């Protein structure tokens, strides 16, 4: 199993706790993600998977514990935090493409404003990325003119445009019509093959089996077990995981 070791660790969460009011959403989370590793977080809803995703680029604050990214402790605010975020891509369940900007502008906004890359260069790179996710012909359209699957692929291109060290996927296919799920998963699988470090919150067991190095099973805010996909799906080590798998695999 690909356990992260020392120097290769890109993200390290130690003893991370997070509450939403009285709800303890993350309980003493310890998690290492190595460079190039693809980690899938699964578990029943309310397990804290999305929050786990969101604390890594500090869209949510944590109450205690430490998170280090690329050897540096997570900045609390300001420019250092903005820089960290620019190095961690994020793909949302609801795509969140900028509604007032064209597809190409969505992909070039970050490079131009954050990375200060010249527009022509950013557009050239943007078109390459749109080509890669198969949306190049829609570059001048607006997000609302695209299907959900297309929008999500643009969102992935937008994240890639920042040359991130890692991409977080927060239930990237949950809001999609069933026939559009595969086109997004295909892009994600190809990213994983290319060695992108990924944390993916998903219920897509097919993706986990095909692309993940490790499955992290969460329940009630805690990491209950983690293992290789094969091991986890065929031979879960905890009752909680067995129970969860029996519910999602039997129908």
């Amino acid at each position, binding site marked *: 199993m690909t356990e992260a070791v020392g120097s290769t660790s890109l993200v390290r969460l130690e003893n991370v706790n997070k509450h939403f009011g009285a709800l303890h959403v993350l309980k003493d989370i310890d998690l290492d993600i190595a460079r190039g590793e693809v980690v899938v977080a699964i578990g029943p809803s309310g397990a804290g998977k999305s929050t786990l995703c969101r604390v890594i680029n500090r869209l949510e604050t944590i109450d205690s514990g430490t998170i280090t990214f690329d050897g540096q402790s997570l900045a609390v605010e300001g420019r250092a935090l903005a820089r960290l975020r620019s190095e961690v891509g994020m793909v949302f369940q609801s795509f969140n493409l900028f*509604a007032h900007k064209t597809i190409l502008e969505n992909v070039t906004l970050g490079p131009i404003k954050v990375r200060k890359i010249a527009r022509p260069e950013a557009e050239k790179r943007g078109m390459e990325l749109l080509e890669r996710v198969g949306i190049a012909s829609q570059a001048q359209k607006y997000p609302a003119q695209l299907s959900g699957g297309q929008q999500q692929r643009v969102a992935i291109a937008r994240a890639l445009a920042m040359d991130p060290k890692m991409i977080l996927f927060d239930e990237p296919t949950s809001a999609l019509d069933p026939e559009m799920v595969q086109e997004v998963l295909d892009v994600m699988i190809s990213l994983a093959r290319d060695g992108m470090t990924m944390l993916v919150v998903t219920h897509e067991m097919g993706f986990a089996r095909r692309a993940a190095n490790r499955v992290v099973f969460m329940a009630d805010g805690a990491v209950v077990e983690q293992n290789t996909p094969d091991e986890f799906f065929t031979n879960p080590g905890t009752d909680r995981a067995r129970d969860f798998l029996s519910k999602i695999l039997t129908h």
Partner: protein
Amino acid sequence: MGGGALGALIEEFPVILGAFWLTIRLTLASAVVALVLGTVLAAMRVSPFGVLRGAATVYVNTLRNTPLTLVIVFCGLGLGLVLDVSFSESLSTNYLWLSIIGLSAYTAAFVCEAIRSGINTVPVGQAEAARALGLTFTQNLRFVVLPQAFRAIIAPLGSLLIALTKNTTVAAAIGVAEASLTMKSLFEQHQDSVVAIFFGFALAFLVLTLPTGLLFGRLARWLKVAR
């Protein structure tokens, strides 16, 4: 005085035109300043800094709940006479600027609230996506949130512009010779034609405000963000 009821209007047409030209300038200048100030205030009200939020809230609540006449009189007498704020050698130009300060300070409070309601129409995911890309708070507002917020509030901003156009008449309180003060002096000169003069002025205001409303309604539809 001859020429019937319309005679006075025709006779004084250049004067009326001049007065409305002043009304238009007063409106446009105040609108620009109010838009800029209102945007800054709105940015302060959503900023992560408590002090800025507090200051903007106090400003908006004070100005929004003070009668405009009070604000204008304060600008004219308080700023102009007592504190000796001066923009020009010419007294009338000075009062014109002081009334622009009053009108824009007052209108900015409403612009701020309109923008804030516009910001509330922008789904939170938009700002989150921008933050996730590494945009700073200011960049986020400037490139993602405010452009969408403005498109959502074009029609209300049009209403504010119409209200501002009519509110410029309060500048008469400190002697700015815009439309209402001019109407008052024409009443004195043409006492037999006050009704005609009134309708003339009212019509002229309609000519200013009706197209504004139509234009902003159009703009609002054109610029609407599809979601």
